[in-house]
């Protein structure tokens, strides 16, 4: 569909109506979840095979790529829409399933082997409507597939930021428009005054989703009032927390939502130039964003006279080269300017003097993405979701030792327990919950006593952790908390830019102490020294990376001090993780002498007569644990203490 540029809201409305008609056309459609998470599990092969096999099979069939709907544990995901029927989601699809799916479609049936859920209506969040897919009664096989409202992973979720992820083809601007896209920008630019928009954002209670939680409306207001003619709008897409990929999913699945948010923001603060700082390690996100920007320019949503309002705005992409610290606003701006990505003190805020010393309004991907919803649905509606201090929804990347791994978007105020147990399905392999790390590497580990705490900016901060950008790493009872603290600190030490002394030297020394504790060289004064170092690093560091770097150590010291003491005083790792403090032994009663472990052992540390119990040579064993996985009889035990009995 080739469309001509849009210069009025009326033209957009007309296009939206025809795009929606095409979007909901009663023709068969297959959507393959082809975000990075899907592609990593083989969605590309599924897609290729489907495209090869569809030739002429079904009249008018379209096979489309879509973004991540969040259920990463079910990838590759394929959704099928047949005229007049509910949309069916198939999980763990391989290319071998493709003929079966196509045959089932041709027969008007459900491919039961892989069906995991059904969507009865296509949601149009911005217009507050749902369009039913089905007409009349369900067929027997469709009824057997549970609706999303009954699928535990989706039941408690509310997709606002992820409204289009998994529903639209991210490479189609028409799809985005069909879902109500760009109508909020049209409304803002033609019906609202900039001050009114800022007021609306303030009333909505939206707070920065990148981690700081600063009220977005207030930030915009300061940027608008800052003196000078030139102002910049920046989107921080330098998502770098280990295990967190909310922003990637939004850009890959719904790039226009970010662009639309930035257009509205640019008009509100009076900016004509925007930047998206996106990490180079997100090639698909960069590709989709680039395409989306070109489309938006062609349609006139970016340019010299947007919606005939006289507002001029353009966006450029800058790719980050892989430094975690460039997610910090001042370092990001330094990098944008072409300088070394190093933070500076923020005594003068970037909204007053940021990029090229001009007022610069930087918000995170998810923050920008929320803006069109607030404008379209109104601040009151948005503020009706969430808690007193934290409004709206938040996307979390729920990862770690949890049964259902993926992106979950929930209303603020939902408890950690609901997220982890109800949506995440609890701990994998029937294990015990031990802690959840929120807020990325510099967040904190929250123990089970606080599982009923709500996800809310202020509540998580009170627990010594933080909301951060939305990482949520679940740990089970087989996780050593000292080792976890060491892992995160090692990450932060590596990512410290090295400009200021406390962060550069302090994190390195803290890591040495933690290494010592994990390796059985802990000393009695170590815990006090860690506290002392932490205090100086928190107080003395130049930027938030250093200022929050000790958090994983401080929270584990606070909630799991007995584990530290066991390592230091008893030279014992209660979770049996720290290699220097454990040993592997073969239970002679269980060992059948099958020698599976012998061939698995990379160090040739296991020996024994055939069909007789084997033994591990402790002097050769490197404690890699490969033998445990190789043994089919559960005969290899992990024991406390490094010496032989």
């Amino acid at each position, binding site marked *: 569909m080739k469309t001509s540029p849009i210069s009025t809201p009326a033209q957009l409305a007309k296009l939206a109506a025809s795009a929606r008609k095409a979007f909901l056309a009663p023709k068969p459609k297959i959507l393959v979840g082809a975000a990075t998470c899907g592609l990593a599990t083989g969605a590309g092969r599924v897609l290729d095979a489907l495209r090869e096999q569809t030739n002429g099979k079904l009249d008018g069939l379209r096979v489309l790529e879509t973004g991540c709907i969040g259920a990463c544990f079910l990838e590759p995901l394929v959704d099928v829409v047949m005229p007049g029927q509910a949309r069916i989601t198939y999980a763990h699809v391989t290319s071998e399933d493709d003929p079966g799916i196509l045959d089932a479609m041709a027969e008007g049936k459900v491919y039961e082997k892989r069906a995991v859920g059904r969507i009865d209506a296509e949601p149009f969040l911005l217009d507050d409507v749902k369009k039913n897919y089905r007409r009349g009664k369900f067929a027997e096989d469709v009824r057997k597939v549970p609706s999303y409202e009954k699928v535990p992973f989706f039941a408690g979720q509310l997709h606002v930021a992820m409204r289009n992820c998994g529903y639209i083809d991210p490479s189609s601007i028409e799809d985005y428009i069909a879902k109500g896209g760009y109508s909020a920008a049209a409304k803002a630019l033609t019906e609202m005054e900039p001050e009114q928009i800022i007021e609306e954002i303030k009333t909505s209670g939206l707070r920065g989703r990148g981690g700081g939680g600063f009220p977005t409306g207030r930030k915009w207001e300061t940027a608008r009032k800052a003196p000078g003619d030139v102002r910049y709008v920046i989107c921080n897409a330098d998502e770098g927390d280990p295990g967190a990929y909310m922003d990637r999913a939004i850009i890959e699945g719904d790039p226009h939502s970010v662009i639309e948010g930035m257009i509205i923001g640019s008009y509100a603060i009076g900016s004509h130039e925007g930047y998206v700082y996106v990490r180079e390690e997100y090639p698909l996100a960069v590709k989709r964003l680039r395409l989306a920007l070109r489309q938006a320019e062609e349609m006139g949503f970016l340019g010299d006279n947007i919606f005939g309002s006289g507002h001029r705005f353009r966006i450029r992409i800058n790719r980050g080269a892989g*430094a975690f*610290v460039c997610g910090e606003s001042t370092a990001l701006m330094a990098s944008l300017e072409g300088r*070394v990505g190093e933070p*500076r*003190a923020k*005594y*003068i805020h970037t909204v007053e003097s940021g990029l090229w010393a001009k007022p610069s309004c930087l918000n995170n991907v998810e923050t920008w993405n929320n803006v069109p919803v607030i404008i379209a649905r109104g601040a009151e509606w948005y503020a009706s979701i969430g808690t007193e201090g934290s409004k709206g929804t938040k996307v979390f990347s729920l990862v770690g030792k949890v049964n259902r791994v993926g992106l979950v978007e929930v209303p603020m105020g939902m408890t950690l327990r609901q997220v982890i147990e109800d949506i995440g399905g609890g701990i994998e392999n029937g294990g015990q919950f031990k802690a959840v790390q929120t807020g990325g590497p510099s967040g904190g580990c929250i123990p089970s006593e606080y599982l009923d705490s709500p996800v809310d900016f202020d509540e998580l901060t009170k627990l010594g952790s933080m909301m951060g950008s939305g990482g949520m790493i679940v740990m089970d009872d087989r996780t050593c908390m000292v080792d976890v603290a060491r892992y995160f600190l090692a990450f932060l*030490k*590596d*990512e*410290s*830019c*090295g*400009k*200021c*002394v*406390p962060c*550069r*030297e*302090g*994190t*390195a*020394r803290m890591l*040495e102490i933690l290494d010592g504790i994990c390796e059985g060289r802990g000393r009695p*004064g170590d815990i006090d*020294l860690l506290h*002392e*170092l932490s*205090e*100086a*690093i928190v*107080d*003395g*560091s*130049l930027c938030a990376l250093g200022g929050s770097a000790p958090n994983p150590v401080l929270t584990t010291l606070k909630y799991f001090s007995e584990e530290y003491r066991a390592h230091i005083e008893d030279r014992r790792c209660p979770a049996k993780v720290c290699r220097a403090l454990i040993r592997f032994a073969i239970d002679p009663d269980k060992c059948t002498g099958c020698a599976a472990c012998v061939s698995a052992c990379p160090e040739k540390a296991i020996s024994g007569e055939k069909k007789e119990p084997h033994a591990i040579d402790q002097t050769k064993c490197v404690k890699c644990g490969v033998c445990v996985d190789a043994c089919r009889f559960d005969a290899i035990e992990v024991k406390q203490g490094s010496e032989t009995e």
Partner: protein
Amino acid sequence: MTEGEDTPFTLNGKPAVAHPGETVLSVAKRHGIHIPTLCHHDAVAPYGACRLCVVEVSWGKRSKIVTSCIYMPYENDSVETDSARVRRVRAMVLELLWSRHPEVEALRDLAGEYGVEEPRFGADPSEAPNRCILCGMCVRVCAEVVGQHAIGYARRGSERRISTPYGDAAEECIGCAACVFICPTGALHYEDVGGLRLMKELQTEIPLASCRSCGEPFATEQQIARVQERLNLPKEVAETCPRCRGTQHRRAMEKVLVTKRS
């Protein structure tokens, strides 16, 4: 930032005033209050990296640590330059630096003033000992004063170090040795040998020019050209070494004086 009015605030319990754009460090200096620094130098822009100049700012019950070399006080700020919290940060900064650079005497002396008797951390054996505390004065003087940008930082975190581009001889370097002179710990050196200025830490060798009067090498060719250009000096003055210039100047003055008397 330099326009506007003075800002009244409290400094160590006494009323003080910051001029527009003035930092706490500067106000303290005017009041004779000593705040230790390692990365501050009046010749270059503040950097805020060493964190030794931290002070505590409070408003009522709330307080925070700020960097006095950058922080410009707000009205009603109450600034303490030597509170217990400030001393704790400084002591740890010094202890950390001492453990990494045990050969820098100035650090040990300063650390002693903050009650650090012996660093509790061993120096990382994998790191070669060096005197560079990464205060960045050399980088700033080269960029801001000399205007050459011949050196910068390489790598990050605890592997950060001062380097020429890609660790090769810096094409931009004019061999002025401003970096050597400003270095507070003696981490950078130069040596004039056989008509060359050698800057071994910067892998750079630059030919020296000889004085047109005495024939002794005294500065690098690029440096002379730069000074001549910037100060708009006659060529013969720029190409004469400071000692000969002094002699010539003295002789000229004597001539004038003799003429005047007679």
